[in-house]
């Protein structure tokens, strides 16, 4: 179905998420790359060797959650915008999620925006914690949102009212 709709299945998503224990320890990337395409900037971006594509740039990146520091440098480097960072260490009921967002207007810190799933459907309101848009991110801003823990595996996008 993924190849017909662009929506990955629940199983595919779960396979890419690090174990919940790791998520609860602190920020960690989720590398949602499902298809072999010639591309390796994630590996180039990672200073900790947590993402390995290898000699053949068509390989699907292998991700090592225990090497990942959650620095999120890979997020704005991935041409497919396929990487997010999740952090379950901050609270028992909520998680923090960092995602790339290339639309205007950018949300304000503290703003409540709509949280969307992988189909673009509204699932819950989320609070914007941080908006990072330095020159080094090259016009791919990274938004940190705080989300109800129940939506850890479904939240993937936000919608900001103009």
């Amino acid at each position, binding site marked *: 179905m993924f190849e017909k709709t662009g929506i990955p299945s629940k199983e595919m998503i779960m396979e890419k998420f690090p174990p919940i224990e790791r998520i609860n320890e602190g920020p960690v990337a989720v590398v949602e790359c499902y298809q072999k395409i010639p591309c390796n*900037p994630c590996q180039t971006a990672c200073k900790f060797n947590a993402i390995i594509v290898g000699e053949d740039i068509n390989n699907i990146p292998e991700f090592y959650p225990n090497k990942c520091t959650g620095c999120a440098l890979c997020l704005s480097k991935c041409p497919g915008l396929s990487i997010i960072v999740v952090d379950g260490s901050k609270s028992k009921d909520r998680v923090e999620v960092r995602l790339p967002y290339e639309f205007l207007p950018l949300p304000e810190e503290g703003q409540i925006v709509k949280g969307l799933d992988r189909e673009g459907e509204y699932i819950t309101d989320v609070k914007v914690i941080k908006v990072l848009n330095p020159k080094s991110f090259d016009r791919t801003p990274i938004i940190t949102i705080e989300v109800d823990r129940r939506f850890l595996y479904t939240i993937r996008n936000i919608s900001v009212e103009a």
Partner: protein
Amino acid sequence: MKQADLVIIGGGPAGLCAALSALKSGSNVLIIERNKDLGGQLRKQTHMFFGSEKQHASLRGIDIPEILLSQLKEYEDKVEILTDSTAVGLYEDGVITVLKKEEDYFKIKPKVTLVATGAFEKALAFPNNDLPGIYGAGAVQTLMNVHGVKPGNKVLMVGAGNIGLIVSYQLMQAGVEVKAILDAAPRIGGYLVHASKVRRMGVPILTSHTVKEAIGKNELEKAIVCQVDEKFMPIEGTEKEFDVDVMCISVGLTPLNELLAMRGCEMKYIPQLGGLVPLRDENYETTVENIFVAGDATGVEEASAAMVEGYLAGLCAAAKIGYKPENFEERRTDYMKQLKDLRSGPAGGHILSGIGQVLIGGKNV
């Protein structure tokens, strides 16, 4: 008549890289470019590129011409650039005829010619496909990303290849609503990361769908689409209506290489490469000696591959007229490896099978 070492026809990604490669080898280069600016399609690509560092992966296409042009500047005294100039003829005696701004018409006699003319968009036949509001994806990108003009307000994208997916995303970035993306194929043709990107913005992707007709009096008002079966035949009763003022047609590209056909290069129809393409050897030389080719003109592919083909063909074209640097083999091997890397995944399979049919000598690059 103007004389030149190497003339490159087309100043897009392939042509610019070919020029840099040949200049690096010591050749003089003359670039003929139809448009006002160099860079070709790179100038419209606001998204980040795939590939690896050597092909500027992760940079945005729009920023690549600047990098290449600043490198070109280092060879200022060895390169001549003719913009607003169209190569209109390529003759048996090697002469190229050029029309500059539709007023100045002149001849150039190069020692070697490299054709990097790119590709053009395929059309789609359906009733009223000539209504204003129905664009090719390239035109939408030119309006939006070069001139900052919105093509309309509500768009139906026809084609879920990389261009259809990317342009849909760019339209949304410009504040234009994309109602749906359709494709007659049963599967999304473009990279799935691009598909997921537009899907999580809420845009449905309808595979096995095509346009039945466009409706509108003076301009596009509605699009009727329907499902198709596995033989691509419309299924009756599956019609859906979309209220749109723009239909963006993105159903693939065809190599633009009439100059090569005119010159007598042996051509072959290869569906995997987008249409009629020249036979060529490993060094990208065609069946006519001293006529080289690179980029989409030799088969439709990504800009990353076009750039590397340019480097390789430029290196070999310069070597052909005596500018063969000491590290020739090293550079040639590196470019070939880069091309192999870009094409060795599942996405490159059909490209390789196409190349296998046009490669003189049969060895795969």
